[in-house]
């Protein structure tokens, strides 16, 4: 098989994603008052409704509806005021009623989009002539969202007797209905994605958005956020879609990327050798790094959809929608923009912090204390020092950022100080002073040391002038020795460099 970038020069990959997210922020299931289960003992969060017992009836969870409306608003969808629940029939024991309650042609949210900014390595996958790339190779892609609809999750099954707990070869299956009925939103994209990196970025961006909204814990490992992909190839310039395969078991961002990459290359190989791609569902095997066939889709399943007679139709009021809108916090993209534009935070830092609600909260609170001018340093601290010191409060973050900005401590010293104060209410500044760690920022005193060291280091000065820049480190060390406890390596480095330049 040829490599991905080679393949994508000749073929256009048409990729779509279907992303299911459990609304773990809700307390109860979609259609009954059972608690949403978090690793509880099997079959202990169940009732006649979610077990599909005869005579049981569903009643929708209003908080789940609010969550999906928020999700739609945050992804630029139109909120359909009128929609209904439908029944989707298939016989499978993880669906307690042998039909899933879901939506029909009209979903709560329709026709949205998310914009991707693809940069760096990720941007290299896309052939240059297929996107408007900036000088640094980055580009923007608008990915259409066809719909987000409301449905209910299935039960968990454990297959016994087969290989790797897989269903193939199993002699029996055991069913736990705790998860059955959990509110699930399904987002279906338009097939606007063109590279595996774009798919990965879309998934990451969506996850950040859902996290910011607080509707789900979005754990791919635990399955509260699940992604299926579909991909087909066509020659550049063609409009028709090729046969597409569906990919399942994409339970990490890496799996999503790698499975799509593999599949694109596999399909290219098939087509280039004159074969046809079969419409089928394939399973990603991460250890063997390949996709294998799950089942061949010969005909489309006929799910016998019809509107659910047990559930009232929806006609959402403007008030309801506006209440949901009011609950939407500042989203990652907006934060990113604001951090960069207003606070001059570098792109990478802004990206990382904006996408993580907990970090963003800490960051913004610390900046409120430390002052906007210190924002870039606060960002630096949040990215590089907070991981490893999980219990810092915003006052401590603000304080250490200020100390760093003033050059009063080195990064290494800051780390030490935070080791001490993490989990306490102690003020970093007090620790610095107690331990006499404060570096001198007294320019004259530092300069005097620099001059004195240079005066007794003629050899090294000569080496520097001859081009050996490495002696600078030695000279900085000498200055630090002379300074005792109050040395400031950065300052020494700068002062030495300036003086040495004048001696050239």
């Amino acid at each position: 098989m040829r490599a991905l970038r080679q393949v994508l020069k000749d073929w256009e990959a048409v990729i779509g994603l279907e992303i299911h997210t459990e609304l773990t922020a809700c307390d109860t299931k979609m259609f009954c008052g059972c608690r949403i289960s978090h690793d509880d003992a099997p079959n202990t969060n169940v009732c006649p409704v979610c077990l599909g017992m005869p005579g049981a009836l569903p009643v929708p969870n209003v908080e789940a509806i609010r969550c999906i409306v928020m999700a739609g608003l945050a992804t630029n969808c139109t909120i359909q005021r009128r929609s209904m629940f439908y029944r989707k029939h298939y016989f499978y024991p993880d669906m307690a009623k042998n039909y899933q309650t879901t939506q029909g042609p009209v979903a709560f949210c329709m026709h949205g989009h998310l914009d991707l900014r693809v940069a760096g390595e990720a941007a290299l996958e896309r052939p240059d002539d297929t996107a408007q790339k900036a000088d640094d190779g980055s580009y923007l892609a608008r990915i259409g969202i066809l719909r987000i609809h409301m449905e209910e999750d299935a039960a968990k099954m454990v297959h016994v007797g087969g290989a790797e707990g897989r269903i193939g070869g199993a002699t029996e299956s055991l069913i736990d209905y705790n998860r059955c009925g959990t509110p699930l939103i399904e987002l279906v994209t338009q097939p606007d994605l063109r590279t595996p990196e774009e798919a990965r970025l879309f998934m990451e961006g969506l996850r950040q958005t859902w996290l910011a909204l607080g509707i789900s814990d979005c754990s791919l490992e635990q399955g509260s956020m699940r992604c299926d992909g579909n991909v087909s190839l066509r020659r550049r310039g063609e409009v028709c879609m090729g046969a597409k395969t569906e990919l399942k078991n994409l339970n990490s961002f890496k799996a999503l990327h790698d499975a799509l990459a593999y599949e694109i290359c596999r399909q290219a190989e098939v087509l280039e050798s004159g074969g046809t791609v079969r419409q089928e569902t394939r399973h990603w095997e991460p250890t063997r790094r390949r996709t294998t066939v799950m089942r061949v889709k010969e005909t489309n399943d006929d799910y016998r959809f019809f509107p659910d007679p047990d559930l009232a139709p929806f006609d959402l009021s403007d008030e309801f929608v506006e209440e949901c809108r009011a609950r939407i916090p500042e989203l990652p993209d907006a934060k990113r923009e604001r951090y960069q534009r207003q606070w001059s935070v570098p792109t990478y830092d802004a990206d990382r912090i904006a996408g993580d609600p907990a970090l963003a909260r800490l960051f913004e609170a610390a900046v409120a204390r430390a002052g906007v001018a210190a924002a870039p340093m606060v960002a630096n601290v949040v990215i590089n020092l907070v991981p490893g010191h999980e219990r810092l409060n915003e006052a401590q973050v603000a304080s250490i950022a200020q100390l760093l900005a003033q050059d009063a401590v080195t990064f290494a010293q800051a780390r030490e100080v935070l080791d001490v104060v993490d989990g306490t209410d102690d003020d970093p500044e007090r620790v610095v002073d107690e331990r006499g760690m404060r570096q001198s920022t007294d320019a004259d005193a530092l300069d005097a040391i620099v001059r004195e060291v240079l005066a007794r280091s003629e050899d090294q000065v000569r080496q520097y002038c001859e081009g050996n820049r490495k002696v600078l480190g030695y000279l900085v060390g000498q200055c630090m020795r002379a300074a005792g406890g109050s040395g400031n390596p950065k300052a020494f480095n700068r002062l030495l460099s300036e003086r040495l330049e004048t001696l050239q």
Partner: protein
Amino acid sequence: MPATLDQLSARQIAAGVASGAFSAVEVAQAALDAIAERDADTQAFLQVSEDLALAAAARVDALRAAGRALPPLAGVPVAFKDNMNLLGTRTTCASHMLERYESPFTATCVQRLLDAGATPLGKLNMDEFAFGSTTDSSAFHPTNNPWGLALVPGGSSGGSAAAVAAGEVTLALGSDTGGSIRQPASLCGVVGMKPTYGVVSRYGVVAFGSSLDQVGPLGRRVEDVALALNALVAGGRDPRDSTSQACEQDFIAHLDDPIEGRHVGIIPSLLEAPGLSAEVRVAMRLAAERLEAQGAHIVEVSLPNMASAIAAYYVIAPCEAFSNLARFDGVRYGYQEPGCATLAKQTSLSRARGFDQEAKRRQMLGAYLLSSGVYEQYYLPAQKVRTLITADYQRAFERVDAILMPTSPTVAWEHGAISDPAALYLADVFTISSNIAGNCAISVPVCLGSESGLPIGAQLQGPSFADARLLTFARALERSCSMEGLVAPGFAGRGGELA
């Protein structure tokens, strides 16, 4: 003091218990006694719940002993169609599929009667999963019409109608999807009402046609039915049933109001319908005359789309039935075929053995009608017909307060005499349109057929949520027909003595 329980109305029983004339336990024992005597002939019951009955009655007696006020149906013997969950009983829907199924909870409608102090005597026979109009399709045994044991009681709430008609219980609950309360009520000579859709909670009642099903009471007099309805709506709408509606009416308060000056509609073309027996035609004329004699104006109305109601019903009902019965796969409950190596085999065989013929037919029809390409041709048009029928009723009810028509085209027939499903389907013609439109309807015994000697009920239909007023008309008709409280001959006084 009357000799037997079956001579008392629900009001009289509750009053007697409240005054101490007899205890609830004594009433319960009388009812058990009557059932033991009479049910051998009617076979109305699938299960008699002696323990539950005596326990509930004892609780009522304890309330009285503690000097507390008694609820409105204190001590009144009731029984429930076996598609209604009641903790402590099996709920079988008269099917092998649920033969061993033990109710894990109690249906709201059942609970509300229990909360009103009623004594639960057990579960009543029905057509399997409510598919049918004879009760002969019960997987366990047929029920016999108390007016002639060789005759069907009607269906699908045949057990409910027979138990009431034979005086085994005072009240029964049935369910009506296409006439399944009203038709057996007519065939057995009792009162049976289908309230407006949404008035009575469906939570806990095994679903057949979700947009058509309604639970309703059967009794030997309109007042009993009205009291039951009061208990069923007490507590407001049911939050466990999305389709449940708030209903603040008091069904007793205006029961005896005069109907003078009110308008009752009749549809002459219906009385010319083929298959309508002469006896029924006579009974309808009698009913109209009696209403007129009380000052009502008889007005001709039309429901132009009524003829299409059968087709619409036989699209919507099977589709919803297939969907609602898909859950019966033997995994979580219900009949499980033993020794199957694969799930598909287990499911297919469990369903093949668990369901009898009519249940399989309805599901297959529904599965076909919902399939891609077919759905657009039948289901959507059927729901459009529903719109037309609903509009027909609305227009008619602008001119009249109630519509009078037959309940069943004939009196009761012999077990097995009508075996062609299509013929049985067509017999639903008078009752189906109220399920399609959702409005209220009641069957009231009018007279006995002059040839057959068998009871004939007239059907009154009212606008949605005007159930209380419909009962007023029913009471007016009942007053003039002298069949109030009638127990089928051959059953009155057999067992059930009150000390």
